[in-house]
């Protein structure tokens, strides 16, 4: 990237920093567009999927198959009155959605779309993603607290407790892969899975297979989706931490949620499902397409779960995390390490 910046500056006959900054802006805009477009597409997809599951049509008025529905909704949200409750902590209230959004947005930066197409090739990419995931908590707590609404506060508390708890099994599941790959760099991890699909980490050992499910369950919880959508549990807390938000501010939460949906699916695909690798050597499909296709399958799976399952209770969510997922995750990590020592050839 630095090299690109330098060459870009040279072609523009400008100082080096201009090239670097231009490139950064391009990268940021690209990531933002990806995220925004993905959110638009997923909102539409979710509504269609929900419609089919619930034996109804879903959106079908705006455009063919209602494909413009989300766009229309976005316009509506933009035009909506921006309400800030009188008793709210104004500065925090305004800041919160951006933090949630930025945390998700920032995590996208390290996703390598293919062996050559990436914005930042961070050596500690995985650590960075985990850190950004936790950063969301700050925004959620801020939103709940600043709204000065008791329901929001309850939602924020739930959200904080839940996300912080589920960090641990998720991190351990990630570590299982790191043990095998020996790197935190997302690009290197994918390269480690090239070749036939049994080289994918999910099939590398029974422990990684379990780790994949641990990661998937944990990431659903971190993304606050049913059956773990407690922070916004509609029937209990009206809308949880974003009860008081409207218009564009609310849309930022929404955008972040769907961005997050894609993010966790991408990470799962990268870590466990071979990332950009097709799985059959010699099949010429662009890497980015393969990665996105895998992610979309996972996204669909999450949607399916959401429209089928009821929600857990707070204590049950915590019990699932601390009583079942955590010991399992530790076991998986140890098992994967032992596996690597015993069968060094496999991974």
């Amino acid at each position: 990237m630095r090299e690109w910046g330098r060459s870009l500056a040279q072609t523009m006959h400008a100082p080096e920093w201009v090239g670097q900054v231009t490139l950064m802006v391009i990268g940021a805009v690209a990531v933002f567009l990806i995220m925004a477009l993905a959110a638009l597409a997923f909102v539409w997809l979710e509504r269609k999927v929900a419609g089919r599951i619930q034996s109804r049509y879903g959106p079908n008025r705006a455009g063919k198959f209602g494909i413009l529905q989300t766009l229309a909704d976005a316009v509506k949200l933009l035009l909506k009155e921006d309400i800030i409750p009188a008793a709210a902590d104004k500065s925090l209230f305004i800041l919160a959605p951006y933090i949630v959004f930025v945390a998700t947005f920032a995590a996208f930066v390290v996703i390598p779309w293919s062996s050559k197409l990436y914005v930042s090739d961070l050596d500690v990419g995985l650590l960075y993603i985990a850190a950004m995931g936790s950063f969301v908590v700050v925004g959620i707590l801020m939103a709940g607290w600043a709204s000065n609404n008791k329901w929001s506060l309850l939602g924020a508390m739930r959200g904080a407790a839940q996300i912080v708890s589920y960090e641990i099994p998720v991190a351990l599941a990630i570590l299982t892969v790191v043990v095998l790959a020996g790197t935190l760099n997302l690009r290197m991890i994918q390269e480690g899975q090239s070749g036939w699909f049994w080289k994918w980490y999910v099939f590398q050992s029974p422990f990684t297979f379990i780790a994949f499910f641990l990661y998937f369950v944990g990431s659903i919880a971190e993304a606050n989706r049913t059956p773990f959508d407690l922070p916004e549990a509609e029937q209990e807390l009206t809308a949880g931490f974003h009860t008081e938000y409207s218009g564009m501010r609310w849309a930022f939460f929404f955008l972040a949620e769907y961005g997050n949906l894609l993010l966790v699916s991408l990470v799962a695909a990268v870590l466990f499902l071979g990332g950009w690798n097709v799985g059959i050597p010699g099949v010429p499909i662009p890497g980015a397409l393969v990665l996105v296709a895998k992610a979309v399958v996972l996204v669909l799976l999450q949607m399916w779960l959401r429209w089928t399952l009821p929600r857990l209770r707070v204590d049950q969510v915590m019990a699932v995390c601390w009583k079942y997922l955590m010991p399992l995750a530790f076991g998986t990590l140890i098992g994967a390490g032992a596996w690597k020592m015993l069968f060094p050839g496999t991974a």
Partner: protein
Amino acid sequence: MSEVRTEEMVLNMGPQHPSTHGVFRVELVTDGEIVTETRPHIGYLHRCFEKHAEHLQYTGIIPFTDRLDYLSGMNQNFGFVLAVEKLLGSEIPERAEYIRVIMAELNRIASHLMMIGHMGTDAGAITPVLYGFRDREYILDLFEEVSGARLLYNYYRVGGVIADLTPGFVEKTRKYLDYLERVLNEFDQLLSENKIFRGRTVGVGVLPPKVAVDYAVTGPNLRACGVNWDLRRDEPYSIYPRFKFDVVVGREGPGVVGDSWNRYWVRVQEIRESAKIVRQALDGLPEGDFIKAPKSIRPPKGSEVYHRTETPRGELGYYVISDGTPTPVRVKVRSPGFVHISAIPAFCTNMMVADLVMAMGTLDFVMGEVDR
């Protein structure tokens, strides 16, 4: 380290809250997520039914009864006309009796379908409610055929019903009942056998039978507490004694007697029982008049009656006093929901907010009948 100061938080659940099913407010005293005290407040949907009734003639009151519990309008009609008929001592044609029972039981199915669906929503599963709507739709179509209305039927009259069954009604209903059996299994898969759903309902909001009787809780909620009591069997009205059906009672199984799970399960089973009754009534449906209207509806001066019927929500009582004129002196409605809400403080304590939602949701009240 200085002690952290904690205090209880008073939360207002409602009047506009997704899980209060209408405009209903509960004041919650919470300690973190645990509700230590509940104080229900009602009256947001008060529409002066009883005052209106004192200005209207008996037949004119019937459409108002629909609006009491808008999910089971037929049953509300039924109770009122029965009370008036009891005052008049009038006779009802056989066919009308059968039609009445068919409608009342179909409406019970429709109402329970809604309740089951909303149970799912309360638990966070949004799909079952749409299945409930979908399957209720066929019943509404049938009602629309006979009464012209889909929600507020105004179908029962003193002395019978306002219109005969339409051609093909019997066959359509039979077909629907066959279909219903299949979809009920779908509900079982989605909710009844779902581990999360059971985790959310089993042992939640246990209403002890003693408290239930003390608070005069009735209907499915009472039966879920293990009390074998059904007005259709124990204080029979209309032609219910002619039909064979089981009274479903809450049991130890996946759930504990009196918990949310049993309140849910009793309703699922009651749909099956109602379907049985409808089938028998369709088989026995005689030919003849569908109404034998009395010349004038003027119950004797000073006569009064308290008549209760089993609606999908429990015991609906009409206390009607006549002074010999075509308008009643007093019509008091004893609605099941009103009574059930009064029981909430008695058993909804020391539970999580999420459990409270389930416990209240399974009581299945409709604010229309609570506030009247």
